């Protein structure tokens, strides 16, 4: 498994081409503007690769990209969003084998277990692909108000969400965090697992080829402790998902969020192998209530304004 990540000494006449792992921002794969990288090790401590060590500037660029993408993504039809999320599942399915290898290397599980994780991640994406066009029906509806008004409530995406991916569950945890955020029409900046970033970077490659518009998902690698406070305080970030944050980080970042009244989703420890409920889907939805009189033709005998 390691030989895909790390340049082997020449075997015969051929030297393997080692890969440079980068960030995924705005649909592109830049290096960190800081020029920094950090080494990523496998579970046994062996060198796997260098990953980009994202900076405050990278985090801000990611927010800009996410904001830019938000209007188009949230304005797309739910049917379209569902197809795109399903397309991610298709592409991940197609790369099961190599994704399983990076998962196995990082998490120290055997390849069979890693494949199972990848399969669950594919299934999770399929699950959320089916939610996009049901969210409004299930969580919105007509309000039977006591007056001559047509009143309805619809869920709408909150906006740009900054998320910390789980530290250990580097693929399934990440997908379980991302999928509900984007399925409901939000755009996201996620800080990947610091110690196990490679599945996230490979997922970025999959997203880039999955019809997901650039900027809808932005993946930062590096230190959450270094980058996330800037995201938590950023005026153009609407909400935080602290699934992967330490308890003490949560307190600090929740405090940062208060400056701009951000929504904060800070769930209890979660077993991502279980099928999910709807808390994650609901976490970054606003409810908008719209009222209109029904009496303008005097048909219902009520107020006309």
């Amino acid at each position, binding site marked *: 498994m390691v030989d895909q990540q790390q340049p082997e000494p020449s075997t015969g006449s051929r030297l393997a081409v080692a890969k440079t792992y980068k960030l995924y921002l705005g649909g592109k794969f830049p290096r960190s503007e800081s020029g920094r990288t950090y080494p990523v090790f496998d579970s046994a401590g062996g060198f796997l690769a260098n990953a980009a060590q994202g900076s405050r500037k990278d985090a801000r660029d990611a927010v800009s990209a996410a904001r830019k993408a938000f209007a188009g993504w949230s304005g797309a039809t739910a049917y379209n969003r569902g197809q795109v999320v399903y397309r991610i599942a298709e592409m991940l399915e197609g790369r099961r084998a190599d994704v399983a290898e990076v998962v196995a290397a990082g998490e120290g599980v055997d390849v069979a277990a890693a494949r199972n994780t990848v399969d669950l991640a594919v299934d999770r994406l399929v699950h959320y692909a089916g939610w996009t066009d049901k969210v409004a029906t299930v969580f919105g509806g007509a309000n039977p108000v006591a007056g001559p008004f047509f009143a309805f409530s619809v869920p709408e995406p909150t906006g740009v969400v900054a998320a910390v991916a789980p530290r250990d569950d580097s693929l399934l945890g990440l997908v379980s965090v991302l999928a509900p955020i984007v399925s409901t029409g939000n755009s996201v900046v996620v800080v990947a697992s610091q110690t196990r970033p490679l599945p996230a970077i490979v997922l970025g490659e999959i997203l880039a080829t999955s019809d997901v518009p650039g900027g809808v998902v932005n993946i930062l690698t590096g230190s959450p402790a270094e980058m996330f406070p800037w995201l938590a305080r950023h005026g153009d970030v609407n909400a935080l998902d602290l699934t992967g944050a330490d308890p003490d980080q949560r307190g600090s*970042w929740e405090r940062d969020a208060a400056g701009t009244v951000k929504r904060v989703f800070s769930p209890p420890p979660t077993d991502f192998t279980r099928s999910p409920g709807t808390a994650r889907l609901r976490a970054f939805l606003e409810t908008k209530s*719209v009222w209109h009189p029904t009496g303008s033709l005097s048909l219902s005998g009520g107020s006309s304004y």
Partner: protein
Amino acid sequence: MDWQYASAPENASIGRVKPRYQPFIDGVFADGSGADAPTINPGTGETLAQVSQSSVADVDRAVGAARAAYTDVWGPMSGTERGKYLFRIARAVAERSRELAVVETLDNGKPIRESRDVDIPTAAAHFFYHAGWADKLEHAGLGPSPQPLGVAGQVIPWNFPLLMAAWKIAPALAAGNTVVIKPAETTPLSLLVLAEIFADAGLPPGVVNIVTGAGDVGEALVNHRDVDKVAFTGSTEVGKRIQSSLAGTGRRLTLELGGKAANIVFDDAPIDQAVEGIVNGIFFNQGHVCCAGSRLLVQESIAEEFLDKLKARMATLRLGDPMDKNTDIGAINSAEQLARVTALADVGDAEGAQRWSPPCVLPDRGFWFPPTIFTEVSQAMRISRDEIFGPVLAVLTFRTPEEAVAKANNSPYGLSAGVWTEKGSRILGMAGALRAGVVWANTFNRFDPAAAFGGYKESGFGREGGRAGLAAYLDSGDY
């Protein structure tokens, strides 16, 4: 011939206002350990009653009573039984509605017409609506077995004292939580009368506890370690402070904060109805409404005609005795709030906007501010950015729907918005494009317990009313 209305004052004695009120803890009215403080009738500036103030120790006692009631009585009780208590309360509020309306108007300064026709009936409706949820929580869309959170600590503002109490208490109790609630220090009376109704309804002691006092008591309540859920309605500034102080505690929080709503009038709007809606949007409750339509965006092509009609309508508004049934605009709630409104309006002058008020005689006692509009307003001015929370309207213009949306959304707030046009597709398009929790189209300031209410952005998070509102008081457990 003089066609003025004869005055038609409501009888103050119907309010049965007592000389002194006490906090309500564990089913008992008893003195708080703070000193007494007066509550003022804003319409006259005179002391209405003395209110025994709570201290931090009283908050502790109230939370303890709520915890015990949650553990022993309210938590284990079936939803059917909880619902029956709430139905009883709804009925009793309706039965005592005239008394409550009088108390509310005397203590708050709002016109009796509004307390009688809006505040009290809507408060009763909230109890009635939520009563029906108590035994149907598994159908609320929050997973198969949503659980109450425990003790809810609630802090409510002075603009709709009884209505805000109903918004907070009814869903909390329906979901199986118990409550400690603090009314604003300037308007505690109607909630303390509601406590009598709780007692009469046989609500078990400790299920709802009312502490009195100012910000320090509220702070002790929201930061109390045995409170599981905090709900706050009030200023964005205080909301941010609460969110910050709860960070890392795991306690649940919902915030209903300020607003600076755009009321958008297109050139094809039904003009007379739009004028009425603009007036209702900003002058209802003296503009002491977080969702007040405080920014008028009028399409340039009709701005002149529209403003003429608006001014003509404003000239007919009757300002004065809140207890008079003909009064449209009552008193500003407190001397402090009057100072704030006055100061912000003065900033409007200083920044170059044009102030206009109809000829209007202000009573010589009490706290008063005339209905006021500012024209020649730019988006950068404080009167078009800051929440004034008074009867002050900032008027801006626009040319295209895109410009209207951009200007409306150009605010850190996102609580409500209004759209006035006869074109259906434009209404729905605007409703989708506006980043606000409530969009009123060809109407304004409509409230109903069945319709979710709450903000986007810095207007807060969480909803009140409807299924979405119940979520604030339940742990779905379905992560």
